[in-house]
């Protein structure tokens, strides 16, 4: 017995007209009330993609406004609202749920050889909580908007006359959506692994989602109580964040960043997971340092709870706290660098296929190196005092959030697209779009690094004319980036209608997700899989499935 699972035979002879999870039932209710993790994953995918497009639109408006030093489009309050909307939509409604909600839901049970996640009803509830949160955030725009920045810093968030309570409750609800997703995935990984699938045979995407899930469960409740307390402050002036009433706004910052630093890893760990899978599959080589990558995910999850104070270097903490937080922040770089080196070492001398998912992955590797290293620069106390609240910070976290996480999300989307829908997009267009996005992204944010280092503060609606060249370059870059994303949306959607059929195993993966029929049947596997080989063992690859189109 050298094969992973007995279902490989079904690749060779796909049953014509067999039912898969997409066509096994139809009608609105069969989707809206579905308990199937794959359908829930697709609903998430549609939802977070719309949120990404909305957030991106707000970003383009911000960039357009900043074309001229005095601003082009908005007054100051409107400008504050637009960048707040951009941040809040991107962080809470797109990035946090994006990869776990869509690709995690779709792939995790497949990779584990399970029929579904452990708690399917809770999974559907997570999706509807996400939807409710997204709708409440939209309602808050209608109710007058919110201008606090996505961070809701007190005391401004307590005094501004805008819809802070509504958006705060939206974040609370979105938080519970995230908590339930994480809880569900932890239980699924612990209890629903196929026979023979030991912890160290799990694909690294599973490890990454697992580490993410721990953070979702342990960090998010603190955000929940924090936004709830802000809502109470506004409703009945509890006073704990309000200096007029004896409260302490810095306490808010501690609460907020205790969640929001780990949240960075809630966002980025799944991206690491995708990249780990893709460098292996598209180089057809086992991962270099499999255990190191797995443990570094857990190490990042743990360290991330100890560094929140690096967001508050200028908030008046004690000197010793500053030293400790700065020092601990450097520690995050170690497991992160281990990953980056392991990925590069995996590609080294591999059989590299430069297809669309791999191109997006390579773009990630370059951008993330820059995003990660500029984070180390910002973790240094003395440098941060200068760079704090400048465009340098903005560029740094966009290299991580947009350049790394969103690109990894795109990479994963292109990788599993044929698995999900059984169709292939136009690869030429995909490669062109990847190039446009890469160029547009760097053109947007490299000027921001430069003007940030020269003192351009973030969140200002106007600026001194000296920065105009940088701002205009950045705006042009954003437009290019937007065009690239639009092209991507176009060919992906078009492929659903006239894409050519994908292969059963489009890329030659050997994890369980590629060993089910494509698209998978409702309960994922025709026969319950038993794992007998080590992970990423490409000697087990069945080349026939790579040449057999989906039924």
């Amino acid at each position: 017995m050298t094969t992973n699972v007995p279902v490989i035979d079904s690749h060779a002879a796909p049953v014509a007209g067999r039912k898969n999870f997409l066509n096994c039932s139809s009608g609105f209710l069969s989707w809206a009330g579905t308990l199937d993790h794959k359908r829930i994953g697709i609903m998430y995918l549609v939802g977070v993609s719309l949120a990404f497009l909305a957030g991106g639109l707000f970003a383009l408006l911000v960039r357009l406004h900043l074309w001229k030093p005095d601003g082009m489009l908005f007054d100051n309050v409107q400008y504050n609202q637009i960048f707040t909307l951009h941040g809040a939509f991107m962080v809470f409604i797109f990035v946090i749920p994006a990869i776990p909600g869509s690709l995690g839901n779709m792939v995790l049970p497949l990779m584990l050889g399970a029929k579904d996640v452990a708690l399917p009803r809770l999974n559907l509830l997570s999706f509807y909580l996400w939807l409710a949160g997204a709708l409440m955030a939209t309602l808050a725009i209608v109710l007058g908007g919110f201008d606090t920045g996505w961070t809701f810093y007190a005391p401004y968030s307590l005094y501004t006359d805008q819809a802070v309570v509504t958006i705060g409750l939206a974040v609370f609800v979105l938080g519970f959506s995230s908590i339930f997703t994480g809880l569900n995935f932890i239980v699924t990984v612990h209890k629903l692994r196929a026979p023979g699938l030991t912890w160290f045979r799990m694909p690294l995407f599973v490890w990454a989602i697992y580490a993410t899930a721990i953070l979702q469960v342990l960090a998010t409740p603190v955000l929940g109580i924090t936004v709830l307390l802000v809502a109470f402050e506004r409703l009945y002036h509890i006073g704990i964040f309000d200096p007029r009433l004896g409260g302490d706004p810095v306490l808010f910052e501690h609460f907020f960043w205790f969640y929001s630093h780990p949240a960075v890893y809630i966002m980025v760990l799944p991206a690491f997971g995708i990249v780990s899978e893709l460098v292996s599959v598209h180089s057809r080589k086992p991962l270099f340092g499999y255990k190191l990558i797995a443990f570094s995910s857990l190490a990042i999850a743990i360290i991330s709870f100890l560094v929140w104070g690096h967001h508050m270097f200028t908030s008046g903490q004690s000197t010793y706290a500053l030293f400790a937080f700065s020092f601990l922040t450097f520690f995050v770089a170690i497991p992160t660098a281990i990953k980056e080196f392991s990925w590069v070492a995996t590609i080294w001398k591999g059989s590299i296929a430069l297809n669309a998912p791999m191109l997006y992955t390579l773009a990630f590797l370059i951008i993330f190196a820059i995003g990660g290293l500029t984070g180390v620069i910002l973790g240094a106390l003395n440098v941060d005092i200068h760079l704090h609240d400048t465009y340098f910070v903005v560029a740094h976290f966009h290299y991580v959030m947009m350049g790394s996480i969103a690109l990894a999300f795109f990479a994963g989307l292109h990788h599993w697209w044929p698995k999900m829908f059984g169709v292939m997009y136009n690869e030429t267009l995909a490669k062109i779009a990847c190039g446009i996005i890469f160029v547009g992204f760097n053109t947007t944010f490299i000027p921001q690094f430069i003007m940030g280092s020269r003192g351009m503060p973030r969140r200002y609606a106007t600026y001194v004319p000296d920065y105009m060249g940088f701002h205009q370059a950045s705006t042009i870059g954003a437009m290019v980036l937007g065009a690239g994303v639009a092209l991507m949306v176009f060919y992906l959607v078009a492929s659903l209608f006239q894409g050519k059929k994908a292969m059963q195993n489009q890329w030659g993966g050997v994890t369980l997700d590629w060993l089910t029929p494509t698209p998978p049947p409702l309960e994922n596997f025709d026969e319950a899989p038993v794992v007998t080989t080590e992970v990423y063992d490409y000697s087990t690859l069945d080349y026939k499935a790579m040449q057999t189109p989906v039924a």
Partner: protein
Amino acid sequence: MSHDGHHSVVIPAPGPEFVPHTVAHHFDTPVQEFQSMKLGFWLFLATEILLFGGLFAAYFYFHESYPETFRLGGHQLDWKLGALNTSVLLLSSWTMAMGVRSSQTSQKQKTLFFCGLTVLGAVIFMVIKFFEYRAKNEHGLIVFSELFHPYDLTTNSLPWFKDYDGVMAGVPHPHLFFAIYLTMTAIHGLHVVIGAGLILWIMKGTAKGRFHAGYYLPVDLVGLYWHLVDLIWIFLFPLLYLVP
């Protein structure tokens, strides 16, 4: 195997007055289902503890900042009523444990009896809480009718904190203690109400015979939830009523 959905695991009912339990389709064994739900619920309880953890952190921070305010504020609460409520909840934890035990041994009537007692405990707790809140209202320490009125910038005063008797005079930011007291006890009270609702739901299922020695998972989980609600109160009581 079960990919066609026709094959499913059924736990037989122990008697005619009970209903068999069908294991959810994506689990292979009842044990797997039991352990999964249990692990999931413990994780959920962890998030509850963390949620309250934020409130406790705020309590300690301000207790440290304004010890006099908290000491004097704590004296305004009736520790006898607090102690009574503590005993009520402790007793109800015992009755809940007995309810779970009865369910595990397929004793329908006993389960209903003990769960009923637990709900009664919840009701008594909330009634006592109501009288406590009313007393605070009367002394102007928490004026509920003005709770949501905007902060008065002209007089720099908080509408819901009047302190008619001047009992908190002379300490800094006297409202802070009562704001934290109200927030913590109200969120806890909400959990008591939710817990009572869950127990009623359990009783309904028990009456229908859904829970028995073969399948008592929901009873078990609601029991855990109720113990957590009690546990949080065990911490709230000394911190608020017996301020050190």
